[in-house]
């Protein structure tokens, strides 16, 4: 078909096609730049945008027209990243943030007000636990922690003021796999949204929205970026949750922060996302830098290739540790013996990611000796890099805790967390052997 589009005739009307994941990780969210023809995503390193005329400026600020105003709220490079993640997750759209923690805070601030209550999995990333325990409580938001593996625990925790369920696809570092479909259906029975942190799985291994999740959060710092270069996060939303069900006046009622606009009624599918951007991001700040968005897009282009390799290496390392006399309690959910095996087959058929922990013989000292002995694994506090990473929580992130407190946090004195990279796997195993040799001779 030939259409005349803005005075330019094009022979390329676009057909509906269900493009594959690998195509979308390269193309979604970007068209060749219409002004320059640039094939790569241009880095729009600008704070602000010249308006055509006063009417256009007003239309942008009134949200009557999709327009760029100020890079704290939107940026064309960041927008490609947002759309690409939304596309890969099967969401209506996305909003990016300066970190995963900022993304999470914004996702929650958009739907919570003082006096509200959140039900959260007890097996969450420590940074999330801090945010919920301290920041949310300071905002007078009540928390109930539940065993994520127990559906009844989620159900029983719901109260009149509950506003959301929160869990992780793959728990950190215990490797719990969330039964997303079951927990989502319990949330929906109570007209609540399920929020899932999908950082460890990435949309290549699991797409929580396909199983009923309403909001998905990523620390893009990890596998999405994939190369340990940039801090960032993103929130995507399915666009199907009924925010006008009476439980969410902060989303549905006329907004005093936006001249009385009712975001859900006016924007429907896009109401929550519009509010997340036009109010929460605007007012909390924490915008993602365009250069970081560009680096995340570079990462996404190879996401499926890297994740397949991460998974293959993680499986090999887990099997090696399983058979090693100085290692025990290997938490990798991808092991055939894992109690999460059936959930992995359902939600993570391509693999259970590449982050897990194990207990090193010798307790606190044993863990430290292992770290001292390795020369290829990088000793640092991050996960999801193409390079293999190792850390001993008892002497770093959980250093202030006694052995008893460590155990309560699900971390043993000798627990070592691995983020398995994409190196030659025989080199990774050789290096761990070097570390275990130090433990054995200590």
């Amino acid at each position, binding site marked *: 078909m030939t259409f005349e589009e803005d005075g330019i005739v094009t022979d390329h*009307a*676009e057909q509906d096609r269900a493009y594959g994941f690998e195509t979308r990780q390269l193309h*979604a969210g970007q068209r060749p730049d219409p*002004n320059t023809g640039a094939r790569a995503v241009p880095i729009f390193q600008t704070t602000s945008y010249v308006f055509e005329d006063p009417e256009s400026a007003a239309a942008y600020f009134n949200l009557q027209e999709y327009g760029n105003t100020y890079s704290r709220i939107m940026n064309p490079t960041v927008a490609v990243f947002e759309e690409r993640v939304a596309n890969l997750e099967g969401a209506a759209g996305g909003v990016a943030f300066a970190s995963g923690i900022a993304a999470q805070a914004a996702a929650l601030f958009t739907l919570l007000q003082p006096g509200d209550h959140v039900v959260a999995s007890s097996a969450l990333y420590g940074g999330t636990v801090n945010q919920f325990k301290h920041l949310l409580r300071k905002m007078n938001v009540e928390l109930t922690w539940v065993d994520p593996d127990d559906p009844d625990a989620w159900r029983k925790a719901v109260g009149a003021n509950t506003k959301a369920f929160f869990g992780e696809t793959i728990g950190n570092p215990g490797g719990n796999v969330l039964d997303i479909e079951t927990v989502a259906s319990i949330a929906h029975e109570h007209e609540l949204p399920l929020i899932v942190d999908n950082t460890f799985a990435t949309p290549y291994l699991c797409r929580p929205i396909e199983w009923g999740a309403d909001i998905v959060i990523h620390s893009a710092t990890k596998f999405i970026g994939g190369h340990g270069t940039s801090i960032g996060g993103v929130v995507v939303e399915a666009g199907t949750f009924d925010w006008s069900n009476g439980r969410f006046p902060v989303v549905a009622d006329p907004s005093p922060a936006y001249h009385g606009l009712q975001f859900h009624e006016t924007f429907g599918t896009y109401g929550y996302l519009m509010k997340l951007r036009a109010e929460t991001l605007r007012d909390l700040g924490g915008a993602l830098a365009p250069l970081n968005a560009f680096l995340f897009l570079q990462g996404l282009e190879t996401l499926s290739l890297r994740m397949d390799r991460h998974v293959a290496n993680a499986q090999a390392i887990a099997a090696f540790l399983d058979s090693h006399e100085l290692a025990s309690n290997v938490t990798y959910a991808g092991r055939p013996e894992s109690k999460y095996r059936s959930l992995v087959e359902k939600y993570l058929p391509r693999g259970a990611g590449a982050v897990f922990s194990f207990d090193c013989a010798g307790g606190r000292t044993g863990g430290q000796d292992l770290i001292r002995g390795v020369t290829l694994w990088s000793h640092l506090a991050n996960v999801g890099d193409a390079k293999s990473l190792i850390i001993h929580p008892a002497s770093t992130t959980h250093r202030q805790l006694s052995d008893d407190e460590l155990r309560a946090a699900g971390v043993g004195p000798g627990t070592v967390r691995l983020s398995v990279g994409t190196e030659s796997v025989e080199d990774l195993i050789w290096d761990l052997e070097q570390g275990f040799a130090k433990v054995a001779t200590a």
Partner: protein
Amino acid sequence: MTDLARYQDALTIQHVLNTAKTIAVVGLSPNELRASYFVGYYLKRHGYRVIPVNPRESQILGETSYPSLSEVPEKVDVVNVFRAPDALPGIARDAVAIGASTLWCQFGVINEEGARIAEDGGMTVIMDRCLKVEHARYVGRMHWLGFNTQRITSVRAGLQ
């Protein structure tokens, strides 16, 4: 269940967006915070002739508002519906009678009888889709705000 996919074909939607000139918005609200006003304002901004159809108003968006489609004194290409689904059969009859070529029903405006009346009258029917969103998806700037347009293309086309 109405099979909505047949009323949401991508090529048909692009054809309507690229050939329509005059759009009658049935149920256009004068309240600038309502979705219909957002859509009407946007369409007018993008060069379409927008004709309000609302019996309670005389003027909306600076345009004369007519009590019904049959009273619109000029040729209408698209009838865009912001009314309760059960109003659709009557609107569809009027749309056929005035010779409009497309019946475009907004999100949630789903009524099989209305769609059939319009189709039997030779009209193209789009249902449960927003005219503003589809315009922004294919012609406009929806991708600037991180929404999932689901578009994949390596063709250089259009100017911003």
